[in-house]
């Protein structure tokens, strides 16, 4: 295989990997602050993509310029899902704080189904895949066997930027300090004057906004979305977070990229793309057997 092919796979894998990492960061944040697994995460991602699509359909009628539509879709799509994430946390997750973690897991799983089925039933013709507008520039450079699409590059940079900003937010800001304090020791954080509920809601908003961004990126990249797209992305994002080490942001990034890398490897190896997920999940299972606490988390409970 020549360098062009290799670079092509690398670029495609990076687009995927960043998308997975965005989902995984959400899982890791939620687990960090509340020790919960929120299984509606993938469906929030899907709803983010559909919200953006609905916005586009509206804006298109008003013949809004492309760049403006895109900006509005991104901002409103992520903000709406951030709000949904916070509400979901306030009304479904926080009330169950003292009950077994399994309850939270189940209730969010069910809520995810509610979101998914609602989109299928109430979005016009929602059970069929929907074309997503190609709003990014369609220019591409051909370089031997490498077809470098400008939209891939933009998506990689946007995703990476979102992750870097999230990291800086958590490491450098006052709110980030609160998130880390709550993640490490809830009670002591409260004794320091940190508003626990506000901090947790903020974290859920942040993670859900990132999921929406991931969903919109997926739509822009494949130019198609469907009501069940969140299922696979949710499972992959969760696996990525676990294999990287739940609670660690670096772990989520590593996990996301690793999963995409494994899929790419599987696709090349078996020459049948359908096997790529089988291969990737098999390797993830082996990795988890080898390092049950994840690749980057240390033995003690590492958080955020």
């Amino acid at each position, binding site marked *: 295989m020549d360098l062009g092919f290799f670079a092509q796979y690398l670029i495609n894998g990076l687009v995927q990997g960043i998308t997975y990492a965005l989902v995984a960061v959400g899982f890791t944040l939620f687990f960090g602050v509340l020790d919960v697994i929120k299984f509606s995460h993938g469906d929030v991602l899907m709803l983010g993509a559909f919200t953006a699509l609905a916005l586009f359909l509206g804006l298109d009628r008003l013949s809004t310029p492309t760049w403006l539509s895109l900006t509005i879709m991104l901002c409103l799509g992520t903000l709406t899902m951030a709000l949904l994430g916070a509400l979901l946390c306030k009304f479904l997750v926080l009330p169950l704080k003292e009950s077994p973690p399994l309850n939270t897991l189940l209730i969010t799983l069910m809520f995810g189904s509610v979101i998914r089925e609602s989109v299928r039933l109430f979005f016009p013709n929602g059970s069929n895949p929907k074309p997503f507008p190609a709003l990014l520039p369609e220019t591409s450079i051909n370089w031997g066997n490498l077809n470098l699409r400008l939209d891939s590059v933009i998506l990689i940079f946007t995703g990476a930027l979102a992750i870097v900003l999230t990291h800086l937010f958590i490491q450098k800001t*006052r709110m980030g*300090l*609160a998130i*880390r*304090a709550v993640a*490490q*020791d809830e*009670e*002591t*954080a*409260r*004794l*320091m*004057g*940190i*508003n*626990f509920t506000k901090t947790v809601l903020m974290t859920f908003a942040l993670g859900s906004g990132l999921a929406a961004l991931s969903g919109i990126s997926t739509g822009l990249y494949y130019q198609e979305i469907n009501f069940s797209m969140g299922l696979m992305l949710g499972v992959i994002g969760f696996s990525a977070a676990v294999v990287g080490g739940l609670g660690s942001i670096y772990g989520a990034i590593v996990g996301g990229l690793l999963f995409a890398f494994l899929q790419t490897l599987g696709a090349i190896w078996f020459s049948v793309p359908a096997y790529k997920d089988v291969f990737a999940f098999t390797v993830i299972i082996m990795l988890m057997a080898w390092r049950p606490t994840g690749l980057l988390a240390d033995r003690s409970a*590492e*958080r*955020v």
Partner: protein
Amino acid sequence: MSKLSVNNLTAGYDEADVVSNVSLEVMEGKITCLLGANGAGKTTLIRTILGLNNSRSGRVALNGVDISTLATHDIASEGVTCVPEGRRVFGKMTVLENLYTGAFLERNSKVVMLRLEQVYDFFPKLKERSNQLAGTMSGGEQAMLTIGRSLMSNPSLMIFDEPSLGLSPLFVKENFRIIKEINEKGMTVLLVEQNVRQTLEIAHFGYVLSQGKIVANGSVDVLRDNSELRAAYFGNA
């Protein structure tokens, strides 16, 4: 003048009352201690004062204002800080970040820097270690950090929850010396302890808690040879 007053407080978990009808006063500028053996209800009482547990009945007032329905972070913003039991530092944060959490409610960074300098003056060791992860420090250093962290909030009342628990004798002594020094600068202190002898050496007033009830109280001179105090610790022999 009374800084903190607890009136007929009853609290517990599930069905059982752990403390019942407890009343105590913490005097402004003094060290008031709360003594009691394991399981006497000291921690439950402190947690209830701080809003970490709900009370069943009774009233907690700070400067005469009822705080019993406030959330923990609101109580903290009223100037109450707690040095928690078991040196609960944020282990994955640096020493400096731990200190910043103490000053979380102060938004003026100049004021925070000023307090940081004061804390560093008080504990030069924390300055040397400012970039070290708190979890990798020794128990004694962590104890210092938790005190420094609480000082960063510029509190008007400091509650120490069993500061000597699990520390080496040398650090226990050092800890009591620090608490005394902080008090001498004007801080009101509520000191919860099992270590009777050293606590009575630095405290002004004391309460003895046994099986969830206050069984003795008074100035430390009175408490020193109080039979109830002995009984609370060694049984009613």
